[in-house]
């Protein structure tokens, strides 16, 4: 069964605004993420965010994956398997 996704286009924003926006969305959906009921996708063109967002996400015990397509980074956040 595919988990519903929620995508946020943060392109054009600079860090730390990107990080704060991402953290806000993650905070709002913390329990859904932990229970693997939702996957959040953040699109950004800010390279610094590809480091700061995953670091914060991992510290929260969530899984994070960064994929680059053209000039956009796709940061996927979801709950851990365990």
């Amino acid at each position: 069964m595919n988990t519903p996704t929620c995508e946020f286009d943060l392109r054009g924003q600079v860090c730390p605004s990107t990080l704060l926006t991402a953290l806000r969305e993650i905070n709002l959906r913390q329990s859904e993420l932990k229970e693997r009921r939702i996957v959040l996708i953040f699109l950004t063109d800010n390279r610094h965010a590809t480091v700061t967002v995953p670091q914060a996400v991992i510290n929260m015990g969530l899984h994070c994956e960064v994929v680059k397509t053209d000039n956009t980074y796709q940061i996927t956040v979801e709950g851990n398997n365990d």
Partner: protein
Amino acid sequence: MTSPVIPQQPSPVEERAYHYIRSKVDQLLDTIGTLPLNPDELDNEALISLDPIGIVSESFKHILAHLEETNQRLTLAHDEIHAILNAVGAAIMVVDPTGRIVAGNNKVNEFFNPGGLPLIGSFCHEIVCHEKDSPPVCVLQNVLANDQVEQRNEVTLNGRCYEVIGTAIHDHKNKQLTHVIILYSDITARISNEQALRQALETTNETKERIKAIFSASGDGLLVTDLDGRIALMNHAAAELLRIPLTSQGKTLDQLFDHRNRLWPACLELIDSGKTLGSVDISIGTDKDETVLATKISLLPRSTPQSGGTVIALRDVTRERTIERMKSEFVSTAAHEFRTPLTAIIGFSELMLNDEFPRDEQHEFLTMIHDKAQSLSHLVNNLLDISRIEAGEKLSLKKTPTALQFLLDRTIPGFAKSSTQHQFVTELADDPILDVDAEAIIQVLENILGNAVKYSPAGGTIRIVCTGDKDQCQIAVHDQGIGMTEEQVARVFDKFYRGSALHTSIGGTGLGMTIVKHFIEEHGGEINISSKPGIGTCVCFTLPVTRETSC
């Protein structure tokens, strides 16, 4: 017309408040690891509406919750590892690169630290090997030097034997070796058991070889089968006796022999009976070349329902069984031979005791009694002779120069008188003087002529032909009787053997020809027989000649 809204400049107090908020937000962002807020990108109003302190605080709350969870997991994992370490039968300790012990299980104290020195913080060489400078085998040093798993077998420490394994632990980030786990398994009992096992194996192999040698060297046939009758082991003698190739091992007795062979049925009977020993005689071959084998069957002890089997010892008893049969026949024949003359003696003597008879009739009866008594005497003499031959006694021959004609005159007339159906013809080139015991040779001639008469029931000519030279005389007695087969001829000198045993009308004990051969050989002569069934028999023997004149 409305006038444009001019942003109100913050008061100095508000400015200080914004500045404070920005500095705290930057401090929090720095903690998270990102850049400080740029006032050009986020004005005061946006700053307040975004609520970065709230966001970061909420994030910290989740990070702390996760850390707490992780900490709980780590505590549980630590407890689990501790329990596992203490449950392991081996001593396990963790040391830093200097050899200082940072962790260890109960077995470390049990094996190496009975005095109860503080384990954590001590150096491993102080606890385990007690060699400060150069321990005999330092697994730690080898792991540090090679940075790979180090295994040492049979390391002796404190009088016990250990298997020691050292494994390096590396830092995840910089991959540096941080600790070494050293495991000590006490293998003293295992080594001792292995030695005992090796010794037992050697003893077993020696015993096996010894049994194999005895098995091969045994003159008796020996055979080992499983409970299905499958041959597991067989020596040469068994293969020869059973007339099967040695390669028959692996086949079952059922496959090798037909239903007439009683060996496997006897084994099955023994297995079913619960007894441990059994025996049976079996026949191998056809009537012409039959051999009789005496078998002794023993059951192998069973350690499991599937194990066990039989050990079969085989011995060729063809000759023994034949002799037993012949002896049995002899007893029957001898009884008959005794009874016939005794019946006549008793009958005629009773007649004479009960009634008066004229003198000529009395003479006739007494002659009959005398003849039958002589016959009995002859029979008893034969038995005594054979008894002496059996005992290996030498005959005390009274050799005197004796004319052959004299010997023939003492024997032929008696047969000629009693058997009118036969004609006796003698062919003597001259009358040789023999160097013999006359009584013994008369016994020889009576036996040979007696057989010639008995085995020519239809009558015919019995020729006695004498040839010879200055040293020996050859005497041949030919008859025209029923003759014998080659097998019968081959066995004619055997004790108790009667060629025509089935021919019940012909009497005899089966001892005569055995005595004849012995007497002839005692004189230094030889005896041979040639015969054809339905044609007749020729008994030919030699005797020594002397130049002296007869008495």
